């Protein structure tokens, strides 16, 4: 079903909210006020909003250590998340989890793990538990192109298919595992062929268009539940916040530093939060659907709301 204009605006507002919220976190990080290490997800807002819009009560979500965008989307607010990073009792998990294991069970985030590959089998167990109770729910487990190198990815896909479990394996392919690109560390993996070999449906999402992502994700969710089948969804993302170090003899253009964790020093808090004029940036993609002046006005409003929320 095509997205209505009012719904489009709401979705765009969410993308912008997630972006500005992360920018506030980044500023706190730069100021060394956070007590724990945070993996920002600048550039992941479109898929996070799509997952959030698709989820229904009873669905499970298992993000990775880079879970900030999903937690912001599910919580609908910044303060409790920021408080968890400060390790305050008012944090979303009362300072029990910090960043990499942040949970929100009431909103379906029942498990997060920074250990690559650990979440896959946990998702299959959760899916079996839900299926045996006759629930029409799906379990979404989010993996990276690094964690899908772990054996548990293959093992869990196989288990989910063998037991006919409604699990969505969502692969966030950002090309990087910390400081190494895929082509620096391994041979390519054709995820569509791997999925096909196990008789698992595969979908590719790229372009950071939250509206098409939502439509596709809703379709995938319905298919997974109706057929009791796992689905593999690969989404191309860019982790924004990369930078170049000053020029040296070895690196005349400056050494490229991929953003992995910690503050993003060259990302600044701004009422208009676009970082890159390219499809790598979901905020830029919004400008293809909605007048930039409208988006900017909304961003200013969101900025003020968030500023008030955390002041």
């Amino acid at each position, binding site marked *: 079903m095509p997205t209505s204009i009012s719904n489009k605006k709401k979705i765009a507002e969410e993308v912008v909210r997630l972006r500005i919220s992360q920018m506030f976190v980044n500023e706190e990080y730069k100021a060394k006020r956070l007590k724990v290490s945070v993996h920002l997800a600048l550039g992941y807002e479109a898929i996070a909003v799509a997952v959030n819009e698709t989820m229904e009560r009873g669905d499970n979500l298992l993000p990775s250590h880079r879970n900030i965008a999903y937690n912001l989307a599910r919580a609908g607010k910044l303060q409790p998340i920021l408080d968890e990073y400060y390790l305050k009792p008012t944090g979303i998990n009362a300072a029990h989890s910090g960043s990499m294991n942040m949970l929100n069970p009431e909103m379906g985030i029942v498990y997060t793990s920074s250990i690559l590959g650990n979440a896959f*089998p946990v998702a299959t167990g959760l899916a079996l538990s839900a299926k045996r109770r006759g629930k029409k729910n799906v379990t979404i487990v989010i993996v990276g192109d690094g964690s899908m190198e772990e054996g548990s990815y293959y093992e869990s896909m*196989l288990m989910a298919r063998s037991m006919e479990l409604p699990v969505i394996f969502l692969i966030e392919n950002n090309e990087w595992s910390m400081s190494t690109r895929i082509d620096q560390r391994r041979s390519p993996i054709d995820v569509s062929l791997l999925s096909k070999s196990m008789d698992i449906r595969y979908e590719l999402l790229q372009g950071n268009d939250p509206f098409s992502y939502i439509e596709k994700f809703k379709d995938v969710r319905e298919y997974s539940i109706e057929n009791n089948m796992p689905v593999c969804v690969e989404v191309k993302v860019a982790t924004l916040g990369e930078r170049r170090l000053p020029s040296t003899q070895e690196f005349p253009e400056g050494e490229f530093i991929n953003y992995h964790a910690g503050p993003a020093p060259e990302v600044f808090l701004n009422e208009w939060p676009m970082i890159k004029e390219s499809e790598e940036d979901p905020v830029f993609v919004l400008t293809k659907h909605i007048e930039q002046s409208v988006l900017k006005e909304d961003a200013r409003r969101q900025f003020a709301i968030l500023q008030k929320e955390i002041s």
Partner: protein
Amino acid sequence: MEDVKPHKYLEHVNETLRKAVGAEEGLVVFGQNVSAGSRISGFTKGFVVKESGVIINSTNTENSLVGFGFGIMIGGGKSALFMKQLDFLFLGIDQLVNTYNIIRNSTHTKGSFTILPVIVDMGYEGPQSSSNNFADFCSIARIDGYAITNKYDVVKIIATHFAKPGFRIISVSQRMYKDEIIDPGKPIITDKDMKFVQYKDGADVTIVSFNFSFPYAWQLALEAEKVGMKPSVWNVNYMTPVDWKSILENIKITKKLVVLDDSKSENLSCFSLLAEARGLNLEKDIFIKREMRADWLNPVSDAIDINYEAVIRELAAQ
């Protein structure tokens, strides 16, 4: 849970588990060949779950099997993973540590997960498999672990812990599979969590067994009684140090201690009891463990060779 007739260790374990499995609503029993072929050499023979449960002959994916069980637990379900060999659990250590920590720290699930591996401790396995260091698995993430060693503890441990909320590992010894199960009779003291049990109460010597060394301790006690000694016998079923107060009080009376531990670990869980007991000005303490000879990687016996007469002579010496 009603008592069962005495017979072989494996039959007794299987019969007790069969009753427990059949009594649980919504139980997910899974593992490799749990309801196929030999049923893990008879360990899971005859298992039937209630209509609300399911038995799954799983894939050969040990890390994921452990994570899967934790997933069921987070989802509020009850599951039991049966494993042919403790060594297979090495592949699940990431889950045993990280995932279990997350569950303990952040969730309030009423779900249940029990892993039941077989300790392959009969020897002659060669380099492919010889891990009997059950306590090491438990120590690595402070996991509740219980060793089944005799007719009393099998019924009690299964009744106390199997399919109950939370997570634990319950292990059985392959070495004892075909032996007549030891019936130690009515115990003197039973820890409420089945961490330890006192089976005999004598004033001459305190004998304490760890891991799967209870049969050695029991034999030593019987041999001691033949020469008129009155031993106290304790078995520690739990895999990590516990509050030793009850055992230490007993040692204060006997002033003589024999500790037996058949684990191959370099970090034996009995060390903490020994450390405390040796501060009690003992008249004698004897520590019996499996000596790791130079050929330990070859197919050799895993049994501890104990000269019971010599131990008793040493205890009797002034």
